């Protein structure tokens, strides 16, 4: 059965693929924002309008808060951080964009396999929710692990969070959302702190490349090839 939520899920999947292949920061951030809007408004679409009547104020508020925070506030913050930090506006991949996309596709295959194994079709609001949620979480992890810039890690956390909330919204509409709001708060704080931290780090060291940040620890003796990198004060 086709509902708006399923179209949203398909969009989510494409956004995951696009994120894995996105080479520009701004583009990636807007993709995350799109995901945020979808996830935020999803509770309204998943609501069983026919039998449930008009949803209560709680759902509306949660949807509003969610989409505003994820679709507007956090992306704006990230864009601000990018602008302020004056980093190069390209994602520097450790794993190439092509391979990342294939990995995301394989994750989707795995997600669908897991979704079939779990047999939670009956309880979920949307059949696609579980596999898409898994894929999105995987994409988030991939962004965290396989990109160099610190800001991509923030992006990755956001995508991961989108996946988690998708999972929550898809499976347990009522209770999930409460838990979900809690997580949202965590992530919001995290992103906020990271955003400020990146800005500060950048002001101090003129770079937010995690390769170079590794040198901040006392492990730099293990990376002889970083000897040439100068950390500017």
């Amino acid at each position: 059965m086709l509902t708006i939520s399923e179209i949203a899920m398909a969009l989510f999947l494409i956004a995951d693929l696009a994120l894995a292949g996105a080479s520009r920061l701004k583009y990636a951030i807007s993709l995350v924002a799109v995901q945020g809007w979808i996830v935020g408004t999803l509770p309204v679409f998943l609501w069983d309008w026919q039998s449930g009547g008009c949803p209560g104020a709680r759902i509306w508020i949660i949807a509003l808060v969610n989409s505003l925070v994820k679709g507007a506030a956090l992306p704006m913050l990230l864009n601000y951080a990018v602008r302020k930090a004056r980093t190069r506006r390209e994602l520097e991949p450790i794993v190439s964009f092509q391979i990342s996309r294939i990995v995301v596709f394989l994750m989707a295959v795995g997600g669908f396999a897991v979704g079939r194994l779990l047999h939670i079709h009956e309880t979920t609001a949307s059949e696609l929710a579980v596999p898409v949620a898994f894929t999105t979480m995987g994409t988030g992890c991939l962004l965290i692990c396989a990109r160099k810039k610190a800001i991509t890690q923030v992006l990755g956390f956001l995508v991961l969070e989108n996946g988690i909330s998708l999972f929550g919204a898809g499976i347990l509409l009522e209770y999930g959302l409460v838990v979900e709001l809690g997580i949202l708060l965590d992530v919001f704080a995290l992103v906020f702190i990271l955003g400020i931290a990146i800005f500060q780090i950048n002001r101090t060291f003129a770079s937010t490349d995690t390769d170079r940040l590794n040198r901040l620890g006392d492990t730099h003796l293990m990376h002889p090839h970083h000897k040439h990198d100068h950390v500017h004060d």
Partner: protein
Amino acid sequence: MNILCIILAAVMAPLFIGIVNQTKAFFAGRRGPGMFRLYVDICKLLRKSCPRPRHSTWLFDIAQSASLAAVIAATAVFPWTGGGGLSSFIPAAVFFYLLAAGRFFTVIGALDAGSAFEGMGASREVQFSALVEPIIFTVLGFLVLLTGDISLSGALSGIAPESWKANVIALVLAFIAFLAVFLLENCRVPFDDPETHLELTMIHEAMLLDVGGPDLAFALYGAALKFELLAAFLVMMFMPCFGQGWKHAAVMFIAIALLSAVTGVVESVMARFRFLKTPHTLMGAALVAALAVLIHVCF
């Protein structure tokens, strides 16, 4: 009636290119060359003589004719009326192999001229056509999976309106993937820019640098026909089955005209992708097609 529709399709092909160009002219605030410009061009070119490069052989002479013949053969098997005729026999693979045969002759003709630029165009042509093959065949496999029919007309029009609704997500994904094929094969923005006609950014047209007269007319007409064919494939693949006969053909032509207008809009508002990024975009399209299969299999 089938044959009438095929003839109608063959006659109307240059019109759709005219629609694209008029749309672009409208967006650019120009008057435009008119819908029927390509007809005039073709008639004019047919009356000219064929110049030949100094060192070419008989392959150069037959290249454009053979290439056009392949595209016409593909037009003849396409189910314009929604079924019947040859299209209910042959698998969809034959359709694309005919187009590939046409491409082979164009490439050989370009190489025969022995010019660096045509070599470059031919090289790009074979590169991208090789890369779109997996997308095409993933989409074909998806259609066969969806309809349970391996014939061209069956795979394209076998979706009943009820099951269409259930499969629309996968269909949309397949549509997006094939849209990339459509735009690339017809050298449209964002993969290629027909405005830079005969320049070095071109994939297809660089192969026609030394072609003139009736040969050029054949090439232009073949390109128009190919545009119409792939647009028709795209439209028919996506739309649910809505009966056969005239009604089908009429809806098809209207939809192709709409798609041409959309192509014109896309060309007006978008810039060309970086040339070296094209393979990456194509890989993305292939993955989207694979997603369509995945969603269909797992649902």
